């Protein structure tokens, strides 16, 4: 999503996040300022180097004087803001959101190649989700192993669209997109045909690296073996931007 263009002369504002007095450039978003200052903010869709999506809602924060919660990833800082990132209410909401995700598809961590290296699993623990109160949807999803190097398991997809964005914004191939609506949404390659048949995919593997869960993985990995590496992203994003 394109945020309005930044002014050439960027000013600095001061704000308070969780009783810490901080300064930030006025074109920064709350999540960027929090990450810079080591204030933990849970998030699944946001990734430094990709455009803002605002879909996972895990990064919602409270702003003093405002009833509505704000997503830290899509809210710019402003002078004098007083932000709370970890109130009891926010913790409760985040727990519920994570439970909703676990119940939506079939995230069985114990047999996942990303076990131990999964952002969803890690967030569940951080946010204190030790069980899921809502019923599981029990909807089976296919696994696409047609690509010679990678595999897609829809059962583990959280629809964060990081793969879609990295493919479009960084690689420039736009092989990925999302089809359908609501809970029937699915990430697809080209016309929702097997990934291995895609004539637009460059097999660069960026989608696999940015995927927070075990939905996109390398072929040949076994339980717990899929470790992802996203360090390339801010570097590439910066260089793409510079052009």
């Amino acid at each position, binding site marked *: *999503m*394109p*945020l*309005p263009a930044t002014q050439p002369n960027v000013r600095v504002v001061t704000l308070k996040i969780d009783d810490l007095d901080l300064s930030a450039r006025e074109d920064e978003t709350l999540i960027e300022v929090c990450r810079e200052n080591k204030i933990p903010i849970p998030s699944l869709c946001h990734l430094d180097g990709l455009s*803002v*999506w*605002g*879909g*996972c*809602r*895990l990064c*919602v924060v409270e702003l003093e004087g405002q009833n509505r*919660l704000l*997503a830290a990833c*899509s*809210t*710019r800082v402003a002078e004098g803001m007083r932000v709370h990132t970890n109130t009891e209410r926010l913790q*409760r*909401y985040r727990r*519920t*959101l994570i439970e*909703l*995700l676990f*119940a*939506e598809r079939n995230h069985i961590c114990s047999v996942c190649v990303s076990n131990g290296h999964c952002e969803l699993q890690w967030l569940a623990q951080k946010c204190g989700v030790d069980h899921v*109160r*809502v*019923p599981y*949807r029990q909807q089976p999803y296919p696994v696409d192993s047609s690509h010679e190097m990678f595999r897609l398991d829809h059962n583990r997809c*959280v*629809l964060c669209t990081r793969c879609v964005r990295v493919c479009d914004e960084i690689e420039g191939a736009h092989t990925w997109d*999302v089809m*359908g*609506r*609501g*809970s*029937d*949404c699915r990430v697809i390659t080209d016309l929702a045909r097997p990934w291995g048949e895609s004539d637009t995919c460059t097999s660069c593997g960026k989608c696999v690296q940015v995927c927070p869960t075990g939905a996109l993985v390398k072929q040949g990995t076994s339980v717990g073996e899929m470790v992802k590496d996203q360090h390339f992203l801010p570097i590439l994003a910066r260089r793409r931007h510079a052009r």
Partner: protein
Amino acid sequence: MHLEDLAEKAAEFRAEEAGIQREVRVCVAASCQSSGSLAVMEALEDACGDGKGTCRVKGVGCMGLCSAGPLVSIADKDCSLDESVLYRDVTPADAPEIMGSVCGSPVERLRCPTDQPFFARQHKIVLENSGFIDPDSFKGYVAVGGYAGMVRALSEMTPADVLREVTTSGLRGRGGGGYPTGLKWSTVAKMPAGQKYVICNADEGDPGAFMDRAVLESDPHRVLEGMAIAAYAVGANKGYIYVRAEYPLAVERLQTAIRKAKRAGFLGSKVADTQFSFEVEIRLGAGAFVCGEETALMASIEGLRGQPRPRPPYPAESGLWGCPTLINNVETFANIAPIVREGGDWFASIGTERSKGTKVFALAGKIRNTGLIEVPMGTSLRDIIEIIGGGIPDGKAFKAVQTGGPSGGCIPEAHLDIPVDYDSLKTLGTMMGSGGMIVMDETSSMVDVARYFMEFCMTESCGKCIPCRTGTWQMHGLLDAIAKAQGTHADLALLEELCEVVQATSLCGLGQTAPNPVLSTLRYFRDEYEEKLQRAEL
């Protein structure tokens, strides 16, 4: 062009009709068409033919009382019998008898009294031409004073003057939220000059609401005029009308209206011989309720999946293709021409302290008079339902009225005396919404109603944000269990908690308001839920 020139044109168009002694108006809006009004119109035309051209059968827009369609009204020149006679449930076989009747002795058996409260209690601004003019006729619109607002704005007012009138009028957005229209316009106007857009949201998606459809089908030029005035005021030169593909008749009439207005020089470049240019294009929706949300609507116009994006930035700042964009709905634009024509103070004199003007409602459900009404803001719900609507049929008792569609709530008998305005409805846990009013009688189960709306939100969720995408699925499951008397008290507690989370964390209005029907039925009809839980736990 000046107002005098336009008045001259109007007089000229009226003069063309001077020879007509009898005008037969047949409602050809969608609802009456569905009841067979086109065949009635044909039969009337046959019966009308005296060859002297003194009788004319004219297709007109919605007359309001849709449940009695096809509706036909007869206006005889020099006959003052309440100006016109209205006939209901007309069939083609009735045509000769109707045409044979003379002034003073109408066909009593078909007569629909117009002094009944359904007609007498209405106050028409938006629908002033509806049922009188031929929606496909540009001349017809001008003849009754159409485009006078636009010509006045362009020839006598600066954009700032227009903004001032609209602000003074106190008009608030009729799409549901009730955001002050003048403020919205001023924000777009204040953005630096450059490409700006005006969008008319005609994606009327609330199930049970058909106000915008009626306006578009009955008086399309009014909407174009409102948009043109808006464009002039905010400095835009391009407009889009985003209309549901499910409204083919409305689309057709809009296309005709745009074509004719353009040919007459009232749209396009140099509108009404001024330096102002304004092009309007129609964009078809494709069956997605979420596209009523402004950022999703803009995504759809851009040819993308209709998924909302976080706000701010608001469309006024960064809208269509990143340009400042003004979005209002059909009824809002339909109020503009009268405001400019008659002045903001006139408009502000109607309605309540904080909700000005009138509101069009679509009355439907278990109510005697189904159809479209326009009443001043502040009219009580009881007046609307019991007097104008004629109460509940079949000797049943009233239970609740649902306003605001899937984002709104149900109001019980105890609160029927509140005045209908944006703020009062909010205090009752519902909202104005676009104007759908569905009446329910004692046979309706409120848990079923909540489940119905949740099912709606679930299937209409775009899938972008977690709380809406999967929270609505879960809430629907819980409601379904409760409705089937299989739910537990723990289920109800979980449902209430999900309501809170989905409301607080969803990305757009669809998700944020999806729990409203549940919360409002829980607030007023909790016993119906409890009863089902008890049955489950027996």
